[in-house]
């Protein structure tokens, strides 16, 4: 039925490091000031990429109910956009997790430069197993977080149940989960398209990536124990995000070619596929969920 490889958590993390352990300067060439390698939110065509990325970061903070000083777990922190924003703007205490040693070092350095090194702790490894040493277990005690963010990371996890259950256990009662992901538009589209050449190109580019339909993700979030609290459709914003990325690549092509010849071309090929898919075979959603039997108690 599918040509997707069966990997365990460690193998998938090692596989994605093919992409995410490349030098930061490759990504600085097109991701903008926040280094946010995920969907932005545009209020209109004149918004800059940096403004649109900041708009999305504010939405995450709002969906997570953050007002300042909370403890937040940022699973799959990437180049640190959310962790650095929450520490810098809201004084949140953040534990950021990434399997990429390059990203971990980068986030630590950026936090130190921003004067928020004391607020941002970075753990390196696959989220499923990252707290196996005593020092890391102390960083990730159960029921100690007010919020968990999983921003476009679930696509890189070969199995969802265990990481979602872990997120649930790490949250305090009433704590919130923000989970955004690129999704197949439906189960039918998944069956039809996940073995096509363009999907396999994405798989090679990112080492491991596998989209699910939203219906599957919602079922998995429910199975982990959460109450679903909200759903946002951001599909319309990913095409413009990728347009900005591509223009950045075109402006800095010489630099990118010097660092890693051919990488820019592979990215642009992927962006072309993805832009063709939004709304047709793929969607982009953000789900908010809460560790609470009765969910949100305020009026809708």
């Amino acid at each position, binding site marked *: 039925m599918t040509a997707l490889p069966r990997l365990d958590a460690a193998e998938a993390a090692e596989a994605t490091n093919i992409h995410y352990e490349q030098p930061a300067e490759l990504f600085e060439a097109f991701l903008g000031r926040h280094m946010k390698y995920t969907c932005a939110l545009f209020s209109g065509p004149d918004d800059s990429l940096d403004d649109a990325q900041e708009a999305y970061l504010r939405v995450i903070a709002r969906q997570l109910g953050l007002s300042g000083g909370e403890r937040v777990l940022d699973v799959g922190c990437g180049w640190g956009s959310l962790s650095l924003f929450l520490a810098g703007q809201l004084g949140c205490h953040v534990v950021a997790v990434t399997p990429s040693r390059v990203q971990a070092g980068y986030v630590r350095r950026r936090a130190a430069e921003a004067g928020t090194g004391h607020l941002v702790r970075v753990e390196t490894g696959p989220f499923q197993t990252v707290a196996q040493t005593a020092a890391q277990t102390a960083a990730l005690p159960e*029921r*100690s977080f007010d919020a968990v963010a999983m921003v476009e990371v679930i696509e890189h996890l070969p199995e969802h149940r265990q990481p979602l259950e872990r997120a649930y256990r790490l949250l*305090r009662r009433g704590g919130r989960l923000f989970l955004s992901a690129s999704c197949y538009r439906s189960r039918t589209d998944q069956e039809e398209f996940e073995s096509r050449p363009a999907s396999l190109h994405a798989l090679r580019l990112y080492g491991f990536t596998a989209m699910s339909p939203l219906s599957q993700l919602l079922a998995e979030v429910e199975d982990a*124990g959460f109450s679903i609290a909200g759903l946002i459709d951001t599909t319309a914003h990913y095409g413009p995000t990728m347009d900005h990325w591509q223009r950045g690549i075109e402006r800095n092509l010489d630099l990118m070619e010097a660092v890693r010849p051919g990488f820019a071309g592979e990215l642009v090929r992927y962006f072309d596929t993805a832009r063709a898919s939004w709304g047709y075979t793929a969607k982009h959603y953000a789900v908010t969920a809460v560790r*609470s039997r009765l969910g949100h108690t305020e009026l809708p």
Partner: protein
Amino acid sequence: MTTSNHAQADAVDAVREALSQQLRLDKDQIEPGERLDLLPHADSVRLMRAVSALERRFDIELDDYAIRKAETVADLARLIDEELATVGRLG
């Protein structure tokens, strides 16, 4: 708000109280070692209502899987005590 220093006896007493109300039994008829599903008038809805009343009384949410595994009055009381201890430890 309840604190974590409830002794086991208090949780047992609270479970007997909740069960007596939901199952319309005399509290003294309910022994700690008795199986929940074999109590007179017991069915899954009434037992769940008793659990719900206990969660509200202590302001806790018990683990769903652990609730289903609880066989006796004492099992349920122990779950409550453990949860109260955890909540107290986390502050």
